[in-house]
């Protein structure tokens, strides 16, 4: 920490830290000396903090958001100009702030303000894409969990769409509490909870990097770099349990780092208590995040044990506590997690193994599951962003080794950054892509730290020229756009029409209307088979028991061209009473199938084969009880040997 801070002497803000005094025996050389931080802050408190460019950049960023809003409005109407305006708006929000934080000039207050504005501004992008309802697949699932708590007054109500989610009730509990006490409903309450989580994330990341490196400049640069990871704008902003757990985990990491910098005092004890409470909140909120947090604690404990002159037990105790708590939750409450996570890992290993034995194949990059190939500029930007980070990584790792190798946090993050590039290779394997995607959110903290070190080293500190600063800001922009291109399906990036108005009446997607009709006329909790898109409407708006996908053979049944014995046996084994058929091919894509379709768009209007969607018509014992054009609901209770429905 001392070496990194001495190179930051070009910083001018009164909020910046100064080089530490000579090392005090019994303390680690990388940490702030006892009492130093308090003295610095006391001195700083007598001076007004300049806001620098913060107000002006907030105005610029706000216009960037307005551009994104206009683009989304246009894309809902099918405007061809929407995509370039979307990118321009995003870059107007991100790039000026990145340009500014690279410089050594901003004060700590300005950096903090810029990072918070950027983080929350990018969250607003996701809200503006879908301002009226949750539309991502996982959002439906978690909204259902919230509604079940509100309706039943209890936790752990089963969720057939994603059975493991009610067993991690952190997000749904907090959201239900907010919805109950504020009267705002599960949708708005969910937006507010994730907004709070986003604020925790950007603040914690900044403070964590600042604490371990001694540099608010590094904290701000690393925070802006973290926003370039592929999931930051959309996936990490969705109403899902990981979107809350990861910020909480980062906050815990910051508290642990903060704790390490305090002498034996009441403040250290208070920080420990706050961290422990945070650990418990993470454990009951998301499985993978809690395991990543345990790995972080053990990694820190091992490195601290090796690097400290004095053997300390406190990091081990915290790690063991986290491990015990996570294990207890896993074994006594959420045992279903095994059956949820293991198949994903198994398929990934199988995919990799098959490739190396010549039986498998790799995934084609930049080609969606629907066969859409990304345009040339997206491929160039995507590859370019990986190359930029690959070039920067060795420089950053060299700085870690040169300046920070006594710092266990820095070493841990350096190791995490290396894992990220290993995980990138997993994207070549079809079944391992998801693991790579999910892992990136955790290990990218390390990537951000290492690349931030590289950034500061590359441009020097005191005499940064405008040209180098601009070049680096352009590199950040490339990382940002490349990340977004790689991380989110192109046909789901721009806003789609979720509802329109006619004569003062709201016209909603047919699947939503059909689901509400089912609840009104057929009651709740009917077993119904459907496609992936409408399954979410049936779950959340219809309060039904939907089946979809490969589980139980539902997908093969829905895609069959005739009613044969295999179809009948699937109906009987699952006990489904109803079948919802959506004639549109797009209904198989749960990211975009939930929206109103545009008949003039071939991708939207393409229908399934008549043999597929029409196979139920005229079948003995099958009633066709609902027809809205694209969607038809069949009563197949007779086929399944069940009593007739209502």
């Amino acid at each position, binding site marked *: 920490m001392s070496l990194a801070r001495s190179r930051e002497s070009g910083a001018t803000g009164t909020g910046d830290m100064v080089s530490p005094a000579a090392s005090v025996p019994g303390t680690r050389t990388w940490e702030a000396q006892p009492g130093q931080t308090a003295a610095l802050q006391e001195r700083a408190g007598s001076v007004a903090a300049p806001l620098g460019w913060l107000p002006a950049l907030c105005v610029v960023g706000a216009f960037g958001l307005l551009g994104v809003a206009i683009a989304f409005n246009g894309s809902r109407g099918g405007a061809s100009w929407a995509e370039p305006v979307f990118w321009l708006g995003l870059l107007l929000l991100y790039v000026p702030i990145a340009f500014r934080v690279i410089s050594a000039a901003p004060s700590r207050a300005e950096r903090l303000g810029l990072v918070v504005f950027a983080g929350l501004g990018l969250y607003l992008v996701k809200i503006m894409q879908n301002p009226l309802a949750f539309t991502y697949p996982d959002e439906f699932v978690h909204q259902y969990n919230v509604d079940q708590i509100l309706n039943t007054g209890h936790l752990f109500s089963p969720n057939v769409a994603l059975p493991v989610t009610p067993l991690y009730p952190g997000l749904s509990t907090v959201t239900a509490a907010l919805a109950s006490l504020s009267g705002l409903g599960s949708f708005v309450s969910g937006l507010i909870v994730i907004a709070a989580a986003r604020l925790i994330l950007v*603040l914690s990341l900044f403070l964590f990097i600042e604490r371990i490196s001694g540099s608010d400049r590094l904290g701000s640069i690393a925070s802006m770099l973290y926003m370039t990871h592929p999931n930051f704008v959309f996936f990490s902003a969705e109403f899902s349990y990981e979107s809350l757990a990861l910020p909480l985990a980062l906050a815990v990491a910051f508290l642990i780092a903060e704790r390490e910098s305090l002498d034996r005092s009441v403040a250290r004890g208070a920080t420990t208590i706050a961290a422990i409470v945070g650990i418990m909140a993470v454990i009951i909120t998301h499985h993978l995040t809690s395991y990543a947090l345990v790995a972080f604690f053990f990694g820190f404990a091992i490195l601290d044990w090796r690097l400290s002159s004095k053997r300390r037990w406190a990091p081990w105790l915290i790690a063991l506590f986290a491990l015990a708590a996570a294990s207890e939750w896993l074994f006594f409450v959420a045992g279903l997690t095994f059956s949820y996570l293991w198949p994903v890992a198994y398929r990934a290993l199988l995919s990799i193994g098959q490739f190396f034995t010549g039986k498998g194949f790799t995934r084609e990059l930049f080609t969606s599951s629907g066969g859409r190939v990304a345009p040339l500029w997206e491929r160039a930007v995507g590859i370019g962003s990986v190359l930029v980070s690959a070039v920067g990584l060795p420089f950053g790792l060299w700085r870690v080794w040169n300046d920070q190798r006594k710092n266990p946090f820095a070493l841990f993050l350096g190791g995490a950054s290396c894992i990220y590039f290993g995980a990138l290779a997993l994207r070549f394997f079809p079944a391992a892509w998801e693991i790579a995607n999910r892992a990136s959110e955790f290990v990218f903290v390390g990537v951000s730290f290492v690349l931030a070190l590289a950034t500061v080293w590359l441009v020097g500190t005191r005499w940064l020229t405008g040209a180098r600063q601009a070049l680096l800001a352009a590199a950040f922009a490339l990382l940002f756009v490349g990340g977004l291109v790689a991380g989110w399906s192109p046909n789901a990036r721009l806003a789609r029409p979720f*509802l329109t108005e006619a004569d003062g009446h709201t016209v909603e997607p047919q699947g939503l209307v059909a689901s509400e009709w089912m609840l009104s006329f057929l009651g709740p909790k009917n077993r119904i088979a459907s496609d992936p898109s409408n399954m979410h409407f049936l779950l959340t708006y219809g309060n039904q028991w939907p089946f979809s996908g490969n589980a139980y053979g539902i997908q093969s049944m829905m895609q069959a061209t005739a009613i044969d014995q295999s179809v009948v046996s699937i109906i009987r084994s699952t006990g489904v009473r109803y079948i919802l058929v959506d004639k549109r091919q797009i209904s198989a894509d749960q990211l975009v199938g939930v929206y109103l379709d545009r*008949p003039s768009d071939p991708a939207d209007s393409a229908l399934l084969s008549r043999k597929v969607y029409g196979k139920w018509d005229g079948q003995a014992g099958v009633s066709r009880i609902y027809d809205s054009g694209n969607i038809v609901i069949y009563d197949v209770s007779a086929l399944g040997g069940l009593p007739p429905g209502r």
Partner: protein
Amino acid sequence: MIILSIVGILLVLVLPGAALSAALFPRGTLAIEKRVVVTLVLSIAAAALGGLFLNLSTLGLSFGTWAIYLLTVTLGATVIAVLRGFTGVAGRAPGPRLQLGLLNTGLFGVAAAVILIALAVAARPAPQQGLQGYSTLYLLPAANGDPNGYRIGVTSAEFSAVQYDIQLKLNGQVIYEWSNITLTPGQEWSSAVELSSSQKGAGRLEAVLYRHDHPGQAYRQTEVVRTGPGG
């Protein structure tokens, strides 16, 4: 409603954590940005962990139990904070003072206004252009369990008023007919049907919806399989 919303947000996301952080970290020991993090984390943790305890109790999770629990946490932590001298400790929280000034305030105000405009623009419903309305038709057995009774209904989600005709057929023969039903967007029509004694037999009961602007072309179709006189 707005006041309730604000109170609810404060009670869940701010007050418990603020009180807990005040109890843990006396005044002047935590910079404002760190206190914000600790406040939010402890508030969320208090709600999440508290939900587990409320779930175990017979009272469950409701408006009343949430309010009592969170207020109890807030007040209890506040008492501890006061006893630890949070209000009395001299000195302000560490960190430089923020001086906004008129220009900066104005710029922040402009930014806030533009963001609000952006949200309003984004929240506008999609234009009708390029989209298509639809109508729904349903046919169900009567809700009261009458084996010879049925419910039929039409809802319009079209973009303008549409005129419909409906035919109810039993084994291909028209047994009921409704003509010139005009529905504006969002409007519903429904009817109860009782089969006569001569119509009570096995077969298929079919409802067909026609639009006046497309005569002769079935717009929507539903049918229910009848297994016999009893249904």
